[in-house]
């Protein structure tokens, strides 16, 4: 059976039926095969959201593909070589010979390295991915090991889970690991034990996404130094004055310019609604008007598997003095939501007016109208939405 004898359309159909590990192995057969894979699988490769290196126990890395169709498909495993195994076959991976094996346990190939060559093996495999999947593909390094440096690889950002406690190492080591990361996508911090403060210049504040579960709201001080886009914070101990200081700092335009969404949850106490709203000098929209819904795709989808931020429907908002942009503020007992709109106050208020007109329209024709904006999605008729409307006025 000569694959090359088939017309291109049939070759494509056959390749469409291969899973990623098989395509990966097929790509080593010849240069012409790589060309065929790349030309016939353009659509499939376009549907890939990112490729992740998941750090597992025993120095193992599992490379996974996250796409529109499948949340995670294993591609290859990278492990320390077992000298007792004798079923390896060498492959030339970006100029480096690397031993692979196929086991019945795994439905994907396993690349093996000697400890002294671990970095170069990962580098070669990564270079090969860039060659196969194109140089615009996003890569993520997912780990909860904050002692081992993360390799510097093209298009790679880090997604780190950090446990901060005396048994999980000192802050200096942690800060060193963070500072070695070129792009920090997400940080998930569990800080239940009092520790030393983070440096004000710490890389963690530069993460695009941060989620914390911290006893003291000042360790880390996300409300003071965060420079990323989305923050999901849970505090045991909390000072309202720091929240007011954060909002005022945002309003001045001096900090948090990239912030799109903030969510704060308190372990036990509730937010003093009136104290907060008066402290931040919140503005109000008449209760007769229907507020738009603020919701965003999450930068990083955590274990809760929620793709979007919780919807904020609020009559309360604040305005950034530097550019007139608006943020909806919603307080609901132990939770506070802060959603920044990519629009100035004037336009924001027009949406309120428009939403009233639109509400009447939708009520009469029973249609759902959605208008997306860069930083948010406004649902004109939330009566048809599955989400429970939140509002300070309720």
């Amino acid at each position, binding site marked *: *059976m*000569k*694959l090359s004898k088939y017309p291109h359309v*049939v070759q494509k159909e056959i390749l469409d*039926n291969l899973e990623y590990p098989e395509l990966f192995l*097929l790509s080593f057969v*010849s240069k*012409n095969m790589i060309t065929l894979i790349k030309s016939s699988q353009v659509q499939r490769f376009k549907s890939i959201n990112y490729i992740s290196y998941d750090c597992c126990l025993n120095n193992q890395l599992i490379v996974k593909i996250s796409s529109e169709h499948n949340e995670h498909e294993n591609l290859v495993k990278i492990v320390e070589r077992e000298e007792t195994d004798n079923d390896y076959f060498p492959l030339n991976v970006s100029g480096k010979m690397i031993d692979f094996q*196929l086991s019945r346990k795994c439905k994907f190939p396993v690349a093996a390295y000697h400890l002294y060559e671990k970095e170069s093996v990962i580098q070669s495999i990564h270079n090969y991915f860039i060659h196969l999947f194109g140089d615009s593909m996003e890569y993520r390094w997912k780990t909860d090991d904050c002692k081992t440096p993360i390799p510097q690889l093209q298009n790679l950002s880090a997604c780190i889970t950090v446990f901060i406690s005396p048994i999980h190492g000192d802050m200096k080591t942690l800060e060193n690991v963070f500072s070695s990361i070129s792009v920090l996508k997400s940080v998930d911090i569990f800080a239940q034990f009092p520790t030393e403060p983070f440096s004000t210049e710490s890389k963690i504040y530069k993460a695009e996404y941060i989620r914390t579960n911290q006893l003291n709201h000042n360790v880390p001080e996300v409300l003071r130094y965060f420079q990323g886009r989305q923050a999901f914070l849970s505090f045991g101990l909390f000072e309202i004055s720091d929240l007011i200081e954060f909002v005022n700092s945002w309003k001045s335009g001096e900090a948090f310019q990239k912030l799109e969404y903030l969510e704060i949850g308190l372990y036990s106490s509730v937010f003093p609604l009136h104290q907060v709203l008066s402290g931040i000098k919140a503005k109000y929209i008449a209760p007769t008007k229907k507020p738009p819904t603020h919701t965003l795709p999450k930068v990083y989808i955590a274990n809760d598997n929620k793709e979007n931020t919780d919807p904020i429907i609020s009559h309360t908002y604040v305005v950034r003095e530097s550019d007139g942009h608006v943020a909806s503020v919603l307080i609901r007992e132990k939770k506070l939501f802060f959603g920044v709109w990519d629009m100035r106050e004037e336009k924001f208020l027009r949406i309120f007016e428009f939403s009233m007109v639109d509400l009447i329209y939708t009520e009469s024709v029973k249609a759902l109208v959605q208008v997306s904006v860069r930083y948010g999605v406004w649902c004109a008729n939330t009566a048809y939405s599955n989400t429970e409307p939140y509002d300070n006025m309720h």
Partner: protein
Amino acid sequence: MSSTEQGTSSAAPAEPTTAPESAAAPEVPESFYYVHGKDKVVHKVSAGALQHSALIHGMISNLGYTEEQAKANPFPFENIDGDILQMVVDWCNQHKGKPTPPEDTNLPKQKEKLFDLVLAVNYLEIKELLTYCCKQVAMMVKGKSPEEIREIWMIPTDAEDEAAEKEAKKRAGKEAAGETAAAAGDAK
């Protein structure tokens, strides 16, 4: 299912046996057409079964043949082996008017038969069967190393590809030179 008998190369084929009718008789009498492959064995197939093939369906929809005319003019598929055409006809009959299942386990397991079947099905434009066949071909390399894949699908090495490319260039050069010489001769 259709049964067949050995045909001849003559214009008028031998009388083929009719495919058994399904239990529920159609309200309108069904029309039949005739096809043969390289071995000249003629297969009688219903228009309903032939609908799976976009190629044949396109051909018959414009012909308006009577039963007699269809019998006298079987569609010749000289590029398809008789046993392969038989498989195709059987498949079309089995799946006549039925939704196609997600898997088909009745496909040939032998590599060469499957290879020929894929070519035939692609030529006849039978989309669902092509999908099954391609899945089957893809399954052949599941859990195989690159060298094993090369062997199964007979994929040339880079060196072989380069040699073939050189050879093709050389041949093209010779042909071009030949054409130039012929043109010069004509001019004289």
